[in-house]
């Protein structure tokens, strides 16, 4: 029964706490979107967000009011994701729900890009590149903010985003998007083609 806490090490006013709660609540949809992009499966993504919310709440004294709640919670989510990744809980699985939606082509563009293709292609990227692209290309963070979130140099983020963009562009242009597992036909074909290129000795020329 300790509803009064006489010696708080970092005293926070009730207003601060209410502000924190409000900001945390506001950022939940963004956490869900980031998590969905990272791990693909909606149910697992939501578990990850719940874990993030609990951790953020527990660590709220470490949040500096006035700084970006979204960036702060993304760091927590990212770390939770990486921990789970190491335990092999996520394997970048494909979100079937998105497959139903089609991105309508803007005027002047020849063929529509299927959101499902884009999402599938996204999930085949290396995790660090996918993350960088999500932060910058979808979340709208600057390179500098993304670098802070990932704990790496700005140049590293730029290079990851660049490589992610190049890989996606190539996959979408060729329509050769590996499905979720390596026993899939497209992935298999991609591997075989790469082997052919290696055999022909021209792999270097295909990758700028």
């Amino acid at each position, binding site marked *: 029964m300790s509803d009064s806490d006489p010696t708080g090490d970092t005293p926070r006013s009730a207003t601060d706490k209410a502000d924190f709660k409000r900001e945390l609540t506001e950022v939940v949809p963004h956490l869900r979107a980031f998590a969905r*992009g990272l791990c693909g499966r909606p149910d697992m993504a939501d578990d990850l967000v719940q874990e993030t919310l609990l951790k953020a709440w527990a660590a709220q004294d470490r949040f500096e009011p006035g700084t970006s709640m979204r960036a702060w919670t993304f*760091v927590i989510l990212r770390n939770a994701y990486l921990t789970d990744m190491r335990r092999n809980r996520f394997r970048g699985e494909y979100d079937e729900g998105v497959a139903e939606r089609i991105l309508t082509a803007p005027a002047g563009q020849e063929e529509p890009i299927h959101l499902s293709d884009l999402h599938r292609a996204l999930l085949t990227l290396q995790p660090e590149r996918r993350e960088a692209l999500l932060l910058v290309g*979808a979340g709208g963070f600057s390179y500098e903010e993304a670098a*802070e979130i990932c*704990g790496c140099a700005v140049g590293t983020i730029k290079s990851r985003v660049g490589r992610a963009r190049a890989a996606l562009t190539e996959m979408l242009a060729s329509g050769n998007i590996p499905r979720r597992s390596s026993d899939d036909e497209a992935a298999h074909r991609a591997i075989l083609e790469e082997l052919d290129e290696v055999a022909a000795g021209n792999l270097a020329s295909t990758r700028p």
Partner: protein
Amino acid sequence: MASDRKPPPGSSGPSQRAPEWADGLKQLYDSVVEEDLPDSFKDLLARLDEIDPRRGSGTGGSPSPSADGRGARG
């Protein structure tokens, strides 16, 4: 002296020429942002007030926000 430094390609924004699928990426993200929040989140958010952050370990795990020892702000 520093003139051999590479010129920044298009300043520091993510403003290099966006590929045609760039809107789709944003759309994927926004489609989740705009989803109605599942009840499980509303329940969790409502429950947070009952968890005293300073007692921390209600969830069992370490509350450290950054396993690598750094926060979002330096």
